[in-house]
């Protein structure tokens, strides 16, 4: 499950590598397009994270080369978010893109999605510890007790449960639950989480929804 990062900016490459390693993925870093090309020719990777602006062979070129020989998932990173750039990347066969500055949680979530793409089927019943969510019957129970949730609370919990253990950024949550695809600087997400907590966690000694300060929220059973 090795991930290749092709990124010329040292700090970026460094924190991406550290982050992915902490998340349990083996990582290799190439700091130029040439190096990236060589590594791709020699090794097998599960995912390539590609910066578009590279010295020597640029990201587009590398993407073209990659697509000629293999179907490895590619995520490209760019500081230019003009629509033409995104379209170009996707047309060349990139699987996803992120515009700098991006949230780290967002990055990790996307990497996970790309790596498990096609392999995971949406489960109809989700469970973490004693919290259960039945998608078909739209029922949520904790320790066997039924919990009444509003539609959006249900959607929010579904998102958190489905990504158990993943830190979700506020942006991701706003976009997935409310289709708000822009950064609004209101604390709507915090409020929604607070209300969900009141129903899910407050009556119970073991808390499941956790705040990751400065990043977002995660649902997991912590020892």
């Amino acid at each position, binding site marked *: 499950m090795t991930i290749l990062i092709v990124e010329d900016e040292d700090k970026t490459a460094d924190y991406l590598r550290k982050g992915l390693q902490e998340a349990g993925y083996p990582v290799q870093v190439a700091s130029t397009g040439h190096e990236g090309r060589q590594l791709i020719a020699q090794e097998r990777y599960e995912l390539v994270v590609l910066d578009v602006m590279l010295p020597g062979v640029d990201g587009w070129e590398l993407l073209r080369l990659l697509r000629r020989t293999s179907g490895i998932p590619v995520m490209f990173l760019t500081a230019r978010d003009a629509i033409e750039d995104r379209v170009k990347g996707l047309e060349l066969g990139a699987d996803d893109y992120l515009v700098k500055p991006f949230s780290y949680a967002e990055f990790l979530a996307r990497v996970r999605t790309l790596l498990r793409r096609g392999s995971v089927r949406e489960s109809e019943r989700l469970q973490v510890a004693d919290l259960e969510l039945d998608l078909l019957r739209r029922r949520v129970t904790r320790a066997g007790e039924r919990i009444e949730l509003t*539609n959006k609370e249900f959607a929010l919990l579904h998102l958190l449960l489905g990504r158990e253990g993943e830190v979700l950024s506020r942006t991701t949550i706003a976009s997935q639950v409310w289709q708000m695809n822009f*950064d*609004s*600087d*209101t604390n*709507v997400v915090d409020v929604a989480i607070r209300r969900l907590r009141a129903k899910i966690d407050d009556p119970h000694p073991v808390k499941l929804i956790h705040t990751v*300060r*400065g990043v977002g929220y995660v649902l997991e059973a912590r020892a």
Partner: protein
Amino acid sequence: MTRWPRSLSQRLALMFALGSAVLLGAICMYLYDSLAREIAWRDDQALAGRIERMRALIDESADLEALRRRPRLYDNMLGNRDSLLWILDDAGQVRIAVGPSGIAVPQLLPSDGRIALRTIEGTPALRLAWTRVAAAEGHLTLIAGRLLAEREQMLGAYRLRLGLALAAGAVLAYLLGLAIAVRGLRPVRDLATRAAAIDVRHLSQRLDTAGSLRELDALRDALNGMLARLEAGFAQLARFSEDLAHEMRTPLNNLMGQTQQALSRARTAEDYQNLLVSNQEEYERLARMIDSMLFLARTEQTAAALVRVPVALQELGDQLCEYFEGLAEERDMRLLNTARGTLAADRELLRRALANLLANSLRYGEPGTPITLSSAVSAQGIEIAVHNLGPAIGAEHLPHLFERFYRCDPSRQGAGESGGLGLAIVRSIMQLHGGDVRVESGAEGTRFVLIFPLSTKFVVDSSS
């Protein structure tokens, strides 16, 4: 028009020359024609006169022999190499022939006593006058003629002179026209010189009206208008850059200050964590600002594409109310959505505009009051309004509310603030839609109104 010279003066001169040539040509043709007619008429008069004199001579003379001997007959012909005189008898025999030899007597229709005139085309061309007279020996035909060669030669020379005069006139007209055009277009060059003198540092200068010409007023006004727009745009840009730098300074200052302060001595892990979280907030603020700035920069390029789709306002309003519901309840406020109808607009942008207005209302509305989202059609256009009951905004702030980074209270600068770009984005979105945004504030609260032009496709729901 591509064959025309690129210089306006040359074009004018050329037109002037062409016009003059046409006019001169017409005059020359008229003069030439008059002269030719005059000469022909005089010649004819002379021929007729000669016939008359011949007739008188014949009347006076006993016979042709006597006539032939009369010196006067020849007198008026002597030295005249292109005059002819024939006297024929009834049998057609030439009895007297005066003039250049070798010219055959042409066949002529008999004349009935009056003088007939005719031009004989041939070599040489002749103009003849003839008549029949009764004489002692019976009827005689008198023919007076004139060779046309000389007249043709004269007229030919005259034509040549006219042609030369015409050509010279056209050339002179061109030169004169050029001189006039160059002189006449001097105000245009002056205007250009003055306009060229206005550079970036002197955008406040205007082209003066003194001594300007009526024809150039439109151009000058257009240039001045352009200068005014440039100046305003430039001023805005300069102010904007300044604001941007200033706005970025605050989070940067926080970042630098608290990081340096934290690093000045060893701290607990918790302290470092707090610092990082605080830094993260500032970073997010910067990132949001950059996002908003880019959004504004893009929407202000008219090239930015608008994806218009039918947007059901009630549904969109409900979505937004649902989104802000929790926040509203925390502030003890209620969100009411009475917007109805389906509007052709860019859904994402409209959502963003309304979200900004709702967030704004939630921020400034009085706790315990409702916020209303409504729609209406007025004379100005299709309106979507967000109304809150909060303290009135000072009248002096209203015209500036939609400017970037404008704050009613310069000292207020909370971390949760929209960075002063929220309303600017709303206005930008509305301008993209060809509409506008308006704000009213008073004792009845504050109302932000998005106005779409009446031409926007809007369907009122039949169900409501």
